[in-house]
């Protein structure tokens, strides 16, 4: 049988394979959007209780532009009353734009309520202005997702403009234009690593719910090496620090692995317990022995500059070597799992421990190795954040990477490439979500809801298929093995 020549059917199947995850993400976004609409007080009002201002004349907005928006389009100082060119038209800058949807002329008003005057506010219900509600709903969702987009990727227009300026010699705009995109990458990096951690565990048949705790302990050990060793050149100190983080995480992961191998204790509960123990441990250390001198906050000392991960660009962009490192690690995990005997053993143990024993593999060793590698990756994620971004370790450290990593691994089907893609997706979502929270007042927890739905849709593709009436043509199965 020839390998490498894909038939038409196989190619179609590949697209099919991509379709379901894509639809899953889209569906999850739609449902989240509905949730945003439903919990938005402004939308409630727009559907029930629409405030209408009575005015002389209804003015339309295409001759005006708000100060805020004008400033976004023009870096130069702009003031109210200026005329500027925005979106192809000349407009006057005003303080805020009146919403013509919410304005009523006196004549119109008097048709309904005879004794009224300009300046008074009346309230309409849904049936009098039905479109307002829907417009508000759309506005709510659109602004939320626009904020998401802006926070995660930024404005393509701005980016192109900045690039053009840079080529011409002025690189001042590059920072701001590319900040969201690079932030997404920065946010995605720990996800890549923790996602790989959990995925590696899954491949070996282990549910590592303890990535969070392993992250903490890795961070503790790593930051200690980072701030306490002085006078070493970066070429020595940085790898040492990263390694320390990995060792810390590896130890924390190996313990439940050993317990599972020797006593059969299920790693789900043990890893969760190790998480809480790690939190308590970090709490003690950062309020005690490892606390930054002369500081009342539960944070560690800053690491030495020789342990910083080099940045690529100037501030405000925070993209650092860690991202490249994470990609290299993903490649290494792929190589390990699929091209080496070590990976062969881990995967065999994961798919059938009995057969693995029969084949001569040592279950104990493999369980411990898998959990240690997994924990090490989580620890490396912590070091990525410490050495690359914040340069010390605070107590309220992670952003809930533990459970997110599980979602990632599931989304990426435990395959390194899938995990990287899923991590980039999550990085985008998270980076955008903080802007959603600040601009559109959507609590950042919407991301968890999104994630949960994505997991469910990916784990049960039948739901998506049923929802979108996708035809499902599995290959004709060969004869069942039982008679």
């Amino acid at each position: 049988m020839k390998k490498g020549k894909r038939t038409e059917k196989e190619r179609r199947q590949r697209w099919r394979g991509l379709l379901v995850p894509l639809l899953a993400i889209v569906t999850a976004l739609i449902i989240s959007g509905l949730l945003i609409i439903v919990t938005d007080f402004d939308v409630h009002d727009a559907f029930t209780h629409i405030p209408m201002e009575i005015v002389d004349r209804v003015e339309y907005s295409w001759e005006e532009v708000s100060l805020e928006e004008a400033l976004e389009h023009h870096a130069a100082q702009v003031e109210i009353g200026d005329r500027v060119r925005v979106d192809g038209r000349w407009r006057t800058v005003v303080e805020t734009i009146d919403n013509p949807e919410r304005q009523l002329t006196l004549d119109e008003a008097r048709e309904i309520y005879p004794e009224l005057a300009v300046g008074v506010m009346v309230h309409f219900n849904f049936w009098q202005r039905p479109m307002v509600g829907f417009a508000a709903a759309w506005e709510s969702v659109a602004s939320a997702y626009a904020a998401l987009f802006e926070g995660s990727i930024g404005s393509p227009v701005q980016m192109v403009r900045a690039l053009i300026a840079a080529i011409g010699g002025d690189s001042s705009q590059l920072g701001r234009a590319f900040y969201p995109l690079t932030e997404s990458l920065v946010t995605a990096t720990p996800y890549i690593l923790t996602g790989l951690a959990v995925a590696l565990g899954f491949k070996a048949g282990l549910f590592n719910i303890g990535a969070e705790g392993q992250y903490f302990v890795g961070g503790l050990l790593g930051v200690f090496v980072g701030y306490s060793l002085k006078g070493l050149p970066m070429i020595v100190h940085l790898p040492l620090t990263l390694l320390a983080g990995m060792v810390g995480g590896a130890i924390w992961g190996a313990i439940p692995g050993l317990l599972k191998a020797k006593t059969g204790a299920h790693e789900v509960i043990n890893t969760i317990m190790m998480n809480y123990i790690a939190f308590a441990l970090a709490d003690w250390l950062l309020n005690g022995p490892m606390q930054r001198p002369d500081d009342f906050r539960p944070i560690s000392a800053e690491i030495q500059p020789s342990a910083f991960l080099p940045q690529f660009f100037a501030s405000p962009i925070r993209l650092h070597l860690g991202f490249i490192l994470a990609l290299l690690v993903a490649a290494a995990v792929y190589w390990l799992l699929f091209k080496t005997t070590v990976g062969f053993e881990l995967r065999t143990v994961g798919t059938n421990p009995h057969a693995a024993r029969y084949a001569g593999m040592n279950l104990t060793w493999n369980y411990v190795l898998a959990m240690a590698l997994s924990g090490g990756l989580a620890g490396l994620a912590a070091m990525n954040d410490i050495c690359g971004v914040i340069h010390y370790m605070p107590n309220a450290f992670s952003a809930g990477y533990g459970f997110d990593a599980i979602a990632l691994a599931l989304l990426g089907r435990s395959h390194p490439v899938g995990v990287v893609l899923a991590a980039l997706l999550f990085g985008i979502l998270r980076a955008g979500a903080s802007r959603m929270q600040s601009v559109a007042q959507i609590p950042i927890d919407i991301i968890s809801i999104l994630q949960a739905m994505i997991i469910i849709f990916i784990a049960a593709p039948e739901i998506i298929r049923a929802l979108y009436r996708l035809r499902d043509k599995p290959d004709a199965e060969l004869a069942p093995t039982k008679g």
Partner: protein
Amino acid sequence: MSTATQSIDHGQIVDPAEVRRGRTMGIFYVLIGVCIYWLFVPSSQPGQTAILGLNPGTQSAALTIPDLVMPVRGSLYAMALVSIVLGVIQLVRGFKRFEGLVLGVVALFLVMSFVVWAARGTGFNMLGVLASTLQRAMPIVLAALSGVMCERSGIINIAIEGMMLMAAMTSALFGSITGSLWLGLIISLLFAGLLGWLLAVLSIRYKINQVISGTAINILSTGLTSFISAKFMSENAALNNSGKFTNVAIPLLSRIPIIGPIFFETNVIVYMMYILLIVMHVMLYYTRWGLRTRAIGEHPRAADTLGVDVLRMRYINVIIGGMVAGLGGAFLVLGSVPRFDELMTAGKGFIGLAAMIFGKWNPFGAFGASLIFGFADALQGKLQILEVPIPSQFMRMAPYLITMIVLAGVVGRSEAPAAEGEPYEKQ
């Protein structure tokens, strides 16, 4: 040539693993005795006493009894000695049937000596700790009972944490909105049951791996509860102010000293738990439903061939299991701190699963195990007040460490329902 047949009677071939375990236990007991002597005795003074208060600090219907005055050195010596003796006996011949009991006794000695030492020269309200034990154990008990219901039917329920959280949030929210504690409670149970239904659908109908579907529900619940809390409840105190159930004393039983104030002078959710405990035990072992439930958890195909509706029973049990978990979540708010804080369950759902395993998947066993966890939690708070020179964070680790030790089989391996975790394929 026929081989000489050796007649071996069934007591003589000894399993080396069992022997090793027995010896380890024996050494363990001796070590505990030695530790008691070596760690605690030196820092105590001769003639010191520890006063363990046995009366409730507040108004109570219970008859007052004198406080327990423990001579520190005396009791420490006694407990150390007995531990060592028990250890030696275990090393030499083992306790066979009483092994579990002896383990419990030695563990109790360890805890008591620690308590006596911590309170040397002063005293504290032991009853308060014991009462607090039940309160802290409540969410764990209900989580464990939920686990029993689901796992006995063959479904692993990792989502107990999420169900509790959802119930906690909705009980606070709807309790505040409706102004009625009971309505808040009932609505929260419905929401938790809804999550149970979701777990059932994902695991039974779509046959998703139960750990994955449970995790997804946890993430969903965390997200939803934090979202709603951040959006509505943190700004608006009126939405997070449900009030709590007041304590009601049961007429005769609350007069019993020690037991009365702990078990019979508390709020109605606790009483509901007692009823649930008894009902669950009776149902599981004495009724048709219980027999069928146990069957579908061990060998669903056998039950199916006899006409038992495996899938329907699993659905119903998981939904009810969700509601039981919900009761635990509602307790956190309506029976304890009358407000919802994000992530307030703090792993109790998972500890409940550990209690379920410790209790060997039966209701009273789970209850006992949960009390132990609750005790560790309660003690930890009290010891901070006593200014025990161990950082509070290490005390906080105690329940989790205990869980891990238990799971490692120190208490003996336990058998999970055989068919748990496997989606049932009707052919």
